[in-house]
């Protein structure tokens, strides 16, 4: 498919994002929430929907859902309730999902993003609390030949917020940038660990196109099955181009759900029966409404940690960093925390920033790891940088040491000692080596004195050779120059 949006077309995108909240127990029962676990070992009569069981709302899930809304600048409802969304699908043991319909917890928010150098405010229509579904697997060797579906209800009942945006997003790139910022916001707010690969953040998109300047929206399609932020951007680029091509050829866009096929790089219409979903929402009779006082809402607002935008601004101001550094260091809360802990213990924040953005991110990326999956601590980096600053090791050696620290978490000083990497900065010892190097290379000494400054390199090389590269280079230079000046024949 030719990906050509053309200047004559406007793309209109709205997103629907589901984020799992980081509670210990499920939203309506006391089963544990952690990732993994043997199938069907974290289930009880409530999350299985056995007759006679009754749900009770997890206070923390309520708090986290409201905090999500507050972090997204939403108005919080003083009166809210739950509703049943009815549909048959075996990953839903009750044949309905407890969700919120007409009275969600949060409404009318926004999130500011910066895409392609342009600042934009994306409206948040609503944020509501609901329950996660179970996981279905297809037995057999492939999805095609399997006659069965296997069900694990460990995930069923994990608290979930659904975040719906206004159709304010104007490009696939903007959609990706929005998701990246949203991920940071919920992570910084401490309400979710947002691991997309574990399914704790998922995104569907509505997309339509219209001739630029048209006031009416075009017919939209809903795109599903996008498993990374990159995939969201690619899927929407494909879908926008497909819709524009269809309209240009005189066709019409059919309102439908389309699946993104990441390997093939295309969206495909679902061959499901064309019938609008009828969820027959009705008020959940097993749960009573939620009434939140202004005092409660304000208390949760005060408890919200510093959010990414504020932190970017503060890092730049407090540590005198370029905006570029501040943006990279706040890519995740863990990274920002790591930087700050190190920067508070070391007098040169820019040097800390360089190492975090350079070596640390390089190694994390190369090994496809998260910061909390490696033993390296901020104090280790501080230890290493102190050694560089004190001239104990060179910058080049420091990179080697850093790599070992990254893998082992051993303190820099002990790695340096064990591997004998300590620079020789002992003036007395070096002075002696310098004297010997000069004595062994009389030609170089003479050339230098005759004005051939390049000859100094040979003498430095001789010193380095004798010290096996561990001599402090600045010190060697100074001592050589002194010796050459003093010992005139």
């Amino acid at each position, binding site marked *: 498919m030719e990906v050509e949006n053309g200047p004559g077309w406007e793309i209109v995108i709205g997103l629907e994002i589901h984020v799992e909240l980081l509670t210990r127990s499920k939203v309506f029962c*006391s089963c544990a929430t952690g990732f993994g676990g043997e199938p*069907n070992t974290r289930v009880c*009569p409530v999350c299985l929907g056995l007759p006679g069981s009754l749900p009770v709302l997890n206070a923390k899930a309520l708090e986290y859902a409201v905090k999500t809304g507050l972090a997204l600048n939403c108005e919080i409802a003083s009166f809210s309730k739950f509703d049943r969304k009815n549909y048959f699908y075996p990953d839903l043991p009750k044949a309905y999902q407890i969700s919120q319909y007409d009275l969600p917890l949060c409404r009318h928010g926004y999130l500011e993003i910066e895409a392609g150098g342009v600042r934009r405010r994306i409206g948040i229509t609503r944020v509501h609390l609901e329950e996660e579904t179970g996981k279905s697997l297809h037995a057999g060797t492939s999805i095609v030949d399997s006659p*069965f*579906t296997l069900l694990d209800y460990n995930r069923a009942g994990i608290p979930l917020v659904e975040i719906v945006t206004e159709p304010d997003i104007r490009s696939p790139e903007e959609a990706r940038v929005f998701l990246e910022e949203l991920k940071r916001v919920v992570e910084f707010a401490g309400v979710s660990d947002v691991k997309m690969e574990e399914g704790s953040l998922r995104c569907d998109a509505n997309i339509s196109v219209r001739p630029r300047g048209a006031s009416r929206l075009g017919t939209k399609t809903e795109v599903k099955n996008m498993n990374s932020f990159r995939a969201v951007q690619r899927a929407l680029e494909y879908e926008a181009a497909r819709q524009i091509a269809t309209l240009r050829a005189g066709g019409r866009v059919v309102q439908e759900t389309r699946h993104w096929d990441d390997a093939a790089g295309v969206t495909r219409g*679902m061959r499901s029966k064309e019938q609008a979903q009828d969820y027959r929402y009705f008020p959940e009779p097993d749960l009573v409404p939620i009434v939140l006082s202004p005092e409660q809402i304000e208390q949760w607002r005060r408890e919200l940690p510093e959010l990414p935008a504020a932190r970017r601004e503060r890092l730049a101001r407090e540590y005198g960093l370029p905006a570029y550094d501040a943006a990279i260091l706040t890519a995740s809360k863990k990274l920002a925390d790591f930087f700050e802990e190190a920067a508070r213990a070391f007098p040169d924040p820019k040097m800390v920033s360089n190492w975090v953005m350079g070596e640390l991110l390089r190694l994390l990326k190369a090994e496809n790891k998260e910061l909390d999956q490696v033993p390296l601590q901020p104090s280790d980096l501080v230890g290493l940088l102190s050694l560089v600053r004190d001239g104990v090791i060179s910058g080049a050696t420091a990179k080697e040491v850093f790599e070992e620290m990254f893998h082992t978490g051993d303190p820099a000083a002990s790695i340096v000692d064990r591997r004998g990497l300590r620079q020789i900065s002992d003036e007395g010892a070096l002075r002696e080596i310098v004297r010997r190097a000069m004595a062994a290379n009389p030609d170089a000494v003479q050339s230098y004195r005759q004005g051939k400054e390049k000859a100094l390199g040979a003498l430095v090389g001789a010193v380095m050779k004798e010290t096996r590269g561990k001599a402090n280079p600045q010190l060697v230079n100074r001592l050589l120059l002194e010796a050459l000046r003093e010992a005139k024949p």
Partner: protein
Amino acid sequence: MQKLSSEQVAHVARLARLALNETEQERFAVQLGQILAYAEKIRELDLEGVEPTAHVLGLTNVTRRDEVRASLDRDEVLRNGPEVENGYFRVPRVVEEA
């Protein structure tokens, strides 16, 4: 008394995954009509300014602390399953055709 159309009955039956024969459809068309007529009575009241009832109990904010308690033993869990395989419930294949 308003009787439901056969299309309406068929729609409701499909949503509930019920297969009704013609006699049943006819019977439920009448019965569902009666139920709706009963609910329609509320329209006889003047409800100007009355908030919809969200819950009949009048209670609010019933919550529990975020504490994990033991789940059910898996043998118990799977006991009600029509079919079971390796700790999973097994059902006829459900795949949305893409």
